[in-house]
């Protein structure tokens, strides 16, 4: 708690004590009066001063002024204790608001506050200690066990196990080695590494994340715009009604019961501030944004939260997004050649290659004990070797054709490794990339959360993509698309409802922009993706999409709850107050109570999973 807030707590406590005393000594009018005034001044002097200051600048509808009128007015017409109670509780409510806002503000800067105060850099062969801001691109940063990376960079030397949770939300440590990218915010758990700084402190990920979360609240939601408009008209209307209530009805009875109606007018003034809404609504959206940011999901605006809560269509890019970029053997096609033998021969050769298609082929065969000699790799084209005396060549179709191999089967546009034995075409191995492990769960979750259409857009060939339809709950599949076609698909989906697109960002910038909400996956370090997307998934986990939707729905639900709750209670008090059923005790309790409940409800998001 800040010093200022602590002082306010003290004042409230003293005032409450004085108030209690004044009630106890209620019989002795003078003592009671003195204690009451002391109680009022202790807790409310700053409100009175502010009210006067603002009144002098022409701000008569300010809540400080209205509260003063209500409380002092109540005391003036003989309701001494009510007047004090109103001011006391008003300050309690204000304190609560301040603490809640302060806590929320600290939650984002917390990320930055935990950054290291110094960085060890090698300059001129010597280790020097610098401030994070002093590191320049190209510097060699040394990270010893326990150190937290202050800038983004690439490992040049050493291996380490690192805690990435500050950025990705993943609690399990990950291993990194030379050539790997390290992002600021990672903590080195063991191992000593050196890295080449690729960004300066203010360009590095952890700083940018904090910036993004802070700026996210600048993009306002429709709910926030509504509240602003509502607040503008609510206060003047209620104050006007209060004035009417004070002067109109008593006119009929010749002002005999003026104080009764004046009292009811004061009740109106107490409920005239829509603070509960004005604070709790933005706080709710902030809570939602903060909640997902701790899971490595960055939503760039409150308006996106609203859109996600109403998601209708989700379109996914295929390769690298729904699939994890790893291939497996789908089937082996030959004319007369023995399939098992073909696979075994190919695997023997491919075992010497690190190509992304070599790996699955080798994985499909248990270690073959064939003799492999004279291995040669033509990068990107194929491999050949002598296996048990036979000349085996495996590679892409073009390479086969260029090497003079004839009699190839028809080209079906499927990812294949063609195999020729002793110069004669023997068959081919067809591969496909597999969906991510959690793809099915994520898509099912999305449907549960309201997504009505799930589509896959891919530049890949139809036959490759077809299998996905059998494995995953997909509604539509568009294959063979050029980047421009993807934008057209999105435009076709837009009229039906909120349309999201999930892609890897690098080639998808226009699509991300056209969709209502664009998600970029695996976007660590990719500036293009971070710029183009509306939601950035830092930890390359597809589950971020369903999680973002889930939290968005929760946020909007809480916002609606708060709005309905606050407005209904205030209306109720206004009606009951006009009838004389509700007094100032009830009014201020309702006002502050509503505020506290709405704020607590909003803070739920920041604290919960």
């Amino acid at each position, binding site marked *: 708690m800040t010093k200022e807030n602590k002082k306010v707590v003290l004042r409230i406590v003293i005032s409450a004590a004085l108030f209690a005393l004044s009630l106890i000594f209620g019989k002795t009018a003078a003592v009671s009066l003195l204690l009451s005034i002391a109680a009022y001044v202790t807790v409310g002097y700053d409100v009175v001063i502010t009210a006067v200051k603002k009144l002098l*600048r022409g*701000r008569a509808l300010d809540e400080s002024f209205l509260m003063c009128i209500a409380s002092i007015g109540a005391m003036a017409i003989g309701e001494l204790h009510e007047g004090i109670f109103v001011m006391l509780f008003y300050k309690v409510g204000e304190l609560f608001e301040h603490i809640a806002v302060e806590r*929320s503000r600290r939650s984002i800067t917390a990320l930055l506050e935990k950054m290291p105060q110094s960085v060890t850099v090698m300059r001129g062969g010597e280790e020097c200690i610098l401030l994070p801001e002093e590191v320049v691109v190209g510097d060699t940063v040394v990270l010893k066990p326990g150190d937290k990376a202050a800038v983004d960079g690439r490992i040049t030397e050493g291996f380490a196990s690192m805690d990435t949770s500050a950025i990705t939300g993943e609690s399990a440590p990950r291993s990194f080695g030379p050539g790997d990218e390290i992002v600021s915010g990672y903590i080195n758990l063991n191992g000593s590494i050196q890295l080449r700084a690729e960004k300066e402190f203010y360009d590095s990920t952890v700083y940018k994340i904090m910036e993004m979360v802070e*700026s996210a609240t600048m*993009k306002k939601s429709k709910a926030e715009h509504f509240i*602003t408009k509502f*607040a503008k008209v609510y206060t003047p209307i209620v104050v006007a009604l209060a004035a009417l209530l004070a002067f109109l009805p008593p006119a009929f009875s010749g002002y005999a019961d003026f104080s009764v109606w004046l009292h009811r007018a004061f009740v109106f003034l107490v409920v005239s501030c829509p603070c509960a809404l004005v604070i709790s609504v933005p706080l709710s959206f*902030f809570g939602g944004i903060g909640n997902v940011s701790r899971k490595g999901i960055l939503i760039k605006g409150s308006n996106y939260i609203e859109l996600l809560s109403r998601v209708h269509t989700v379109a996914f890019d295929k390769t690298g997004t729904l699939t994890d970029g790893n291939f497996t053997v789908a089937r082996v096609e030959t004319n007369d050649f023995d399939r098992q033998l073909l696979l075994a021969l190919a695997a023997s050769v491919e075992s010497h290659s690190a190509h992304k298609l070599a790996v699955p082929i080798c994985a499909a065969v248990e270690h073959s004990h064939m003799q492999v000699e004279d291995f040669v790799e033509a990068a990107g084209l194929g491999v050949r070797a002598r296996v048990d005396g036979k000349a085996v060549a495996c590679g892409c179709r073009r390479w086969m054709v260029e090497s003079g191999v004839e009699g190839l089967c028809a080209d079906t546009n499927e990812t294949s490794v063609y195999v020729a034995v002793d110069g004669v075409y023997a068959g081919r191995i067809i591969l496909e990339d597999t969906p991510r492990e959690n793809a099915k769960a994520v898509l099912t979750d999305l449907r549960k959360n309201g997504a009505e259409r799930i589509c896959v857009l891919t530049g890949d060939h139809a036959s490759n993509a077809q299998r996905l339809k059998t494995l995953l709950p997909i509604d539509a599949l568009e294959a063979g698309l050029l980047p421009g076609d993807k934008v057209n698909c999105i435009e076709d989906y837009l009229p039906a409802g909120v349309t999201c697109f999930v892609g890897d960002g690098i080639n998808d910038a226009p699509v991300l922009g056209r969709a209502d909400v664009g998600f970029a996956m695996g976007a660590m370090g990719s500036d293009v993706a971070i710029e183009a997307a509306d939601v950035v998934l830092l930890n390359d986990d597809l589950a971020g999409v369903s999680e973002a939707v889930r939290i968005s729905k929760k946020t909007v639900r809480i916002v609606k709850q708060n709005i309905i709750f606050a407005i209904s209670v205030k209306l109720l008090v206004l009606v009951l107050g006009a009838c004389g059923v509700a007094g100032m005790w009830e009014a201020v309790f309702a006002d502050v109570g509503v505020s506290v409940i709405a704020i607590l409800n909003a803070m739920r998001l920041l604290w919960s999973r």
Partner: protein
Amino acid sequence: MKKMGKIEKLCCAHCAALIQEKIAQLDGVQEVSISFITQRIAMQIDESKADAIVMQAERIVKDIEPDCVLKF
């Protein structure tokens, strides 16, 4: 052009909304957004009127919340 800044010691959400509205009415301001929670202000303004806008914005803030400090 975009102009971002900080509004410190902003303690009244209502006032934040009022400040935002008044700044939005200034000549040369296309868009302005104030976030009460993060104490930040972002404006889309006419580059040629930038200095005048900043001065007027500071005056508006002082008018509505005397304790507030506007920093660009």
